[in-house]
């Protein structure tokens, strides 16, 4: 073999190798899109088949378009390779960051798949054309497609086994982007003479390479950034504790607290919620000395309770030490609860309410229960008859309790189920509701074993919102807040509340 012949052979193999890389990378991008879609949109069967179909179809479009490329084939080939690397490489980080902020996520996803598919679809015919004079037709088709399909096999093996478990999606996507780009750089150097505007192409390739390597290094930050973008406002605090993810956002007017992405309060209207939660119950006890707060680690209910000078002890039991720490020490937050958690009357215990109750012996005049909504089986237990029966151990007959009980408008079954469960445990109840702009229509249930539950004549402490006439209104329920079916009592061994809640809120958010 003489040296030119050797040269030709080497060129061939280099080009075939780049087919392999394109095939691997193309399929990887497609798999990433499918995985991402099934993570964030659910229903993996639909997502994967949509994406595979779209990808194949787009390759067809690419093949079709290839007929318009007849000159400068190598230049086009390298440019397309670079483009695949660029778009494919940043596809996962891009989708991650954009998912929370855009509406047509599925559309964007498919759009990216179409572009990548089309580009990959152009590559193979281009290569066939480049090599057509160097190989017999027979050899050509056989080699190119062999490499193409080997690439596909490789991709589908390494993706689930090696890359997703070890690198995660964002880094996997960038990793293959980088490989694409590196190949295009190699091609640039190898075919220096045959490629048009080779300097510019090299320059852009290096730029993309640097960008992607940086993104690879900062993948975790990209992830966090995506997290933050899902909130409308600036995130001023974010922390994952063993129990939940706490995120605090701020804009000019308000602070908002999110637990596991669910809004807990907005500083703009939380007083409506906390006044409604605390004062009716407090006003229904003759002499309130000892108060128990379950949940409510934000100290806002405690702030309201502290307005009663007769109160001697406030006992706060909240699972998450990070919550109570944050709300005692963070300047803005402690400002919001007026340093309530640091008052000498207040003792804080970070325990599981159910377990704490089993061990507790003190008796309280008033109990404020501010648990998260019953959105999981674990939380559902805190709304069960067993829990309420246990609660009696810390109550005297005239103690008054109040329970935040989700929205009677969105979830009437859930709301009235809590009511019925309390009644089944021998409590008389007084359900009521009010409007809290950032939540919507919200519900509470006041209950006592023997105290007659009245509309207080006055609310004897400084308030912004609640008053006797307002409370009278709160006790009226319109028809659309009443349950249509007979409801069951929520028990540990039926967990009906969680089922009602899930049904009703899913239905609501589906609309």
């Amino acid at each position, binding site marked *: 073999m003489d040296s030119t012949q050797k040269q030709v052979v080497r060129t061939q193999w280099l080009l075939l190798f780049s087919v392999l890389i394109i095939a691997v990378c193309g399929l990887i991008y497609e798999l990433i899109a499918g995985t991402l879609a099934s993570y964030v949109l659910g229903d993996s069967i639909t997502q994967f088949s949509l994406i595979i179909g779209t990808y194949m179809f787009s390759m067809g479009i690419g093949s079709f378009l290839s007929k318009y490329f007849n000159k400068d084939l190598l230049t086009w080939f390298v440019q397309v390779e670079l483009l695949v690397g660029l778009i494919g490489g940043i596809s996962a980080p891009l989708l991650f960051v954009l998912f929370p902020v855009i509406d047509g996520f599925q559309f964007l996803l498919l759009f990216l798949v179409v572009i990548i598919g089309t580009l990959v679809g152009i590559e193979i015919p281009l290569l066939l054309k480049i090599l057509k004079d160097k190989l017999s037709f027979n050899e050509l088709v056989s080699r190119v497609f062999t490499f193409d399909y080997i690439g596909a096999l490789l991709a589908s093996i390494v993706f689930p086994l090696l890359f997703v478990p*070890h690198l995660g999606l964002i880094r996997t996507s960038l990793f293959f982007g980088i490989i694409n780009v590196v190949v295009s750089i190699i091609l640039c150097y190898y075919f220096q003479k045959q490629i048009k505007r080779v300097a510019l192409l090299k320059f852009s390739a290096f730029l993309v390479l640097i960008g992607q390597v940086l993104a690879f290094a900062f993948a975790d930050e990209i992830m966090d950034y995506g997290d933050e973008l899902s909130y409308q406002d600036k995130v001023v605090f974010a922390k994952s504790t063993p129990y939940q993810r706490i995120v605090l956002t701020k804009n000019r007017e308000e602070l908002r607290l999110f637990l596991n992405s669910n809004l807990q309060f907005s500083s703009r209207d939380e007083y409506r919620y906390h006044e409604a939660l605390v004062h009716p119950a407090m006003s229904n006890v003759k002499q309130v000395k000892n108060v128990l707060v379950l949940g409510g680690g934000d100290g806002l209910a405690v702030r309201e309770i502290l307005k009663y000078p007769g109160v001697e002890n406030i006992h706060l039991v909240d699972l998450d030490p990070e919550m109570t720490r944050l709300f005692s020490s963070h300047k803005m937050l402690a400002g919001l609860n007026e340093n309530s958690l640091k008052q000498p009357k207040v003792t804080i215990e970070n325990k599981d309410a159910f377990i704490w109750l089993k061990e507790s012996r003190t008796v309280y005049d008033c109990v404020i229960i501010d648990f998260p909504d019953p959105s999981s089986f674990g939380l559902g237990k805190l709304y069960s008859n067993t829990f309420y029966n246990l609660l009696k151990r810390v109550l005297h007959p005239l103690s008054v309790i109040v329970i935040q009980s989700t929205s009677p408008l969105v979830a009437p079954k859930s709301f009235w189920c809590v009511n019925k469960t309390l009644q089944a445990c021998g409590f008389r109840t007084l359900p009521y509701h009010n409007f809290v702009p950032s939540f919507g229509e919200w519900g509470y249930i006041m209950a006592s074993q023997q105290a007659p539950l009245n509309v207080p004549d006055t609310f004897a402490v400084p308030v912004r919102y609640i008053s006797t006439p307002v409370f009278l209104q709160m006790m009226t329920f319109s028809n659309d807040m009443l349950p249509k079916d007979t409801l069951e009592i929520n028990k540990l061994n039926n967990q009906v509340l969680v089922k009602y809640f899930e049904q009703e809120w899913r239905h609501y958010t589906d609309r």
Partner: protein
Amino acid sequence: MMTVSGGLGLGMQACRAQRKIPGSIVGASAAIGHMLRDKAFEAPTVFEEKQVVIIGGGISGLSAAMHLSKAGVDDLVLLELEAYTGGNAASGSNEYSKFPYGAHYVPIPNNELKDYTAFLEEAGVITGYENDLPVYNELYLCHDPEDRLYINGKWQEGIVPNYGLGQDARQQFARFFEKMAALRLAKGQDGKDAFAIPIDTSSSDPVYTGLDTITFKQWLEQESFTAKELLWYANYCTLDDFGTTIELISAWAGIHYFAARKGKAANAHYDDVLTWEEGNGFLAAQLRNRTQAEIRTNSLVISIEEMNGKVELSYFDVQQQKVLGLRCDQCIVAAPQFINARMLSRSEPERVGLVKSHMEYSPWIVANLKVKAGLEERNGVDLSWDNVLYEGNGLGYVDAGHQKISLSQPVKNLTYYKPLKGSSNAEARKAALAKQHQEWVAEVLSDLVKVHPNLEQQLLQVDIALWGHAMIQPLPGWIWGETRKKLQQSIGDTIHFAHTDIAGISIFEEAFYQGLNAAKQVKRFL
């Protein structure tokens, strides 16, 4: 959502070589047990005097101990070969929850079992009565969601196959449950329930006992139950309760599983179950708390012999590595018969052969998997107490922390059950004893990755409890045959037997009544 795990270590880490997962093989100390078979012990020289000795600290032995204490017997010793009591109801714990090593639940009891319900009331499991019906402590009734089955690519609610079933299979299930409901009410000529608990209180009417001569599979065929899902389900149930397939188990025992539970309660249904983080370890502890017996663990009984109206026994103190002697007026042998036969071999040499030729015990493993939060899940119902795979290799797993009321469960203990198969029980036992920890882990994983693809990554530890003789197999002829009656007989007026293997089936209630009845015998002769 997803994790973007760091680390550039790809490629270098090669493919997924199975990570070595920490843990050990625990459970019945086969090594100590085998000493009885293989080692020659010297005879003790001195004999300590006691009024009553109980051998074995499983449920049967503990129940006997509790009832004797209640009857005022206080010169009482219980010998247990393991370092702990509980036997098959033993349990363990780690910083996250307690978990069972074996037995893990009891169905709500039949109402006429007054001694048993009285015990449950003392233990706080029954909190009172409403209209004569027991009210169960709802902390102990299995919380919802109770069970789920992975079938046709989805977790469905309940373990009776339903999702994706054809019309014919559905009809067969309906007919099957109707049939069982009728058998639940059936009574024999003698007026007794056809299928009762303890099984010795069942009717001896041959119409029903005749079912003990065929296998459950034959019976199902006779009744034209052919749907593959129904056969799977029946087989799952008999494996779950008896470690025995429908091809082998007696039809009487198979039906008993479905027709013997008839408990009524103010706040539960006959098929509801009671369970605890530590499984039946809870009940074992309750029994133990109610006896004043002196409990000596690490004590392997070697021989028992009746001598001049008394019982002389020798036991090996595993810690002191010494053989000690005891002489008592009355003795309750609450260990399984294959062991008893060896302890009694001097005076009753024929026992070894009798047991060998008539009694089959199935071997089991129970694997406790300590799993980090973030287990991937398939579609359908959420993690439940009992999680079963249709046509799985094992019986699925129980979430030990299910009954916990705390919200924070960063780590879960999942307890996986599997009766072991082999050409014979002895073969399966031999193969099991030879297996390494990592082989067990791989075996458990291969079953469960189908439903939790990232299980291996989330695994922190796996402990394998190996039960070589987990439970007696009620093969045709065992329950209503002569051998069982023979083996139940006391020896003279001094040595009495109590164990679930001679009860016929291995469930908590049988153990409880085995102990109670033996205690009554002892009382008679004291």
